[in-house]
């Protein structure tokens, strides 16, 4: 779970390692910009100085006996890292109770990606099937690129950054029927190919410590929320006796 874009180059996640302590350790070094990681970090950090084992056990209390097994890669998907290049690649799947046709239409609707990616990036339509991506970094840095949409075999949808992007990247989503009318399995694939050397290292730092698999999970989950219910669950701006209310 600690496979952040930056940290993954120095840290190989061990499959049996409890994840509950680790996102905190990784993301608190880049406080304040990726809410996905931050939510976990703030809460885990809020446990206040307990040893990591105790924290993991305490977190397990919330959910029970599956806790340890849960951290051993039972989620649907995989993550690869190019040994030499620092390439980051992730593939995740989710089952959604809608037809492939409806999902494909919704994915291509220019209003969808901005909502699905809202916790990670600002995405806006750029005309001619292009999308403009912007990721806010620490200290006011931002990383932006344009991507074009490309068709993929079998009805999938692909996109890739246009030439000149500082960190070339590409992604795709494909739709396969789930068994017995259970809807459609949606698989998201994302790859970042940073250039070598100090430049690539620096640019990756701009992207921060975003755990790419968390980004993919969140995007798929939010897409599912949107197509199944018409909205994405939220707790922002709700009542709480503190400044940050969600």
């Amino acid at each position, binding site marked *: 779970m600690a496979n952040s874009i930056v940290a993954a180059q120095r840290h190989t996640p061990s499959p049996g390692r409890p994840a509950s302590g680790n996102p905190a350790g990784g993301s608190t070094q880049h406080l304040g910009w990726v809410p996905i990681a931050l939510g976990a970090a703030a809460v885990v950090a809020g446990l206040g100085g307990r040893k990591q084992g105790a924290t993991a056990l305490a*977190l*397990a*209390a*919330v959910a029970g006996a599956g806790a340890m097994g849960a951290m051993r890669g*039972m989620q649907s998907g995989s993550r690869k890292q190019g040994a030499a290049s620092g390439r980051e690649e992730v593939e995740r799947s989710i089952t959604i109770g809608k037809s492939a046709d409806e999902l494909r239409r919704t994915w291509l609707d220019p209003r969808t990606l901005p909502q699905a990616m809202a916790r990670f990036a600002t995405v806006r339509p750029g005309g001619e099937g292009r999308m403009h991506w912007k990721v806010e970094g620490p200290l006011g840095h931002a990383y932006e690129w344009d991507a074009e949409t490309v068709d993929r075999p079998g009805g999938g949808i692909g996109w890739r950054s246009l030439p000149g992007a500082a960190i070339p990247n590409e992604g795709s989503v494909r739709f396969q029927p789930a068994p017995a009318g259970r809807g459609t399995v949606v698989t998201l694939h994302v790859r970042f190919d940073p250039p070598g050397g100090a430049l690539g290292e620096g640019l990756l730092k701009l992207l921060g410590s975003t755990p790419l698999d968390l980004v993919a999970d969140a995007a798929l989950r939010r897409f599912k929320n949107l197509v199944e219910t018409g909205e994405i669950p939220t707790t922002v701006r709700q009542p709480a*006796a503190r400044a940050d*209310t969600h």
Partner: protein
Amino acid sequence: MRALYWNGVNDLRVGTVKDPEILNPRDAILRVSLSTTCGSDLHFIDGYIPTMKAGDVIGHEFMGVIEEVGSEVKRVKKGDRVVVPSFIVCGQCWYCQHSLYSLCDNTHPKPELQEPLLGGQTTAGIYGYTHAFGGYAGAHAEYVRVPFADNDCFKVPDGVADENALFLSDAAPTGYMGADFCNIQPGDTVAVWGCGGVGLMAQQSARLMGAERVIGIDRFPERLQMAREHAGSETIDYTQVDSVLEVLKEMTGGRGPDACIDAVGMEAHGTGPQYAYDLVKQALRLETDRGQALREAIMACRKGGTLSVLGVYGVLDKFPMGALMNKGMTMRTAQQHGQAYMDRLLAHAQKGELSPAYLATHRFSLEDGPRGYDMFKHKKDGCVRAVFAP
């Protein structure tokens, strides 16, 4: 508005917070009429369940009147008097369509906090019950936001008082589901560990579903009295007998109860060395749960019987898997699928077959919330449930 919030372990406070607002088109805002304490709140108040943040408004069992609805709310409207199950459900995902409501796929805003604990999966969100369960603001407040109002607000029929409707939010559906899990057949004996709100509701539900005998187990005389009076249960005070197992075996002609319901959970009290073992390990955070009630329920149950677990658990030591397996038992468990039972529960309430208002032994203004929880936690003055009226 005023609200009761968690400020730290064993530190509840009342303060002024901003009013809730419609955030999504299927939301409603409810003016809370009544809300109540739940034993499961004590787990995070006592610090056994993490992912609370100082300032979180708590409370997940409540009823009230709809004040405002979002643009996509069709079925309920302003002015409706409604009860709301504690789990927030979308009504449209695969789980909702299979009546597994507390497993709804679409109401958890913070799945990354819970997925590592549940094999990469999530439950539905709950009001006022930790960020691992969604981080929604709770209902011990003047107002609460109810997402997916058409699926989660149930109109209370005229003739069902607020005090009765209140407990259809959580205690009654949880107990009812626990009895439903037991697949009760004519002649069956059902034993229920715990005579708090959920345990008493489970006992009454078992009766409604045709159990021949119901046996309630607890240590508080006033709760055992309620079990006898309201559920027609026989009772066992476990502090007054050498062995609950032997008593149950004798009471059931040597067979053991056909079904055993655990309505206690991770902070069980007991007697003897096993209880001492759990107390020490829990205090040292070497295990999160004291599980004596659950272990006893497994050991007591007849061969081929059903174990129905309603108590909330984390990680438990010394789970007697061998007894469960070799006795060929069926274990069923869930957080409450309240939406699946609400029509039946409201019908029972309307016919006077289920009147849980007697659980409300103590009533407080919201301002006295911390005192209410203190009385409830320490079971002072025979407190079964503290009820708050904003």
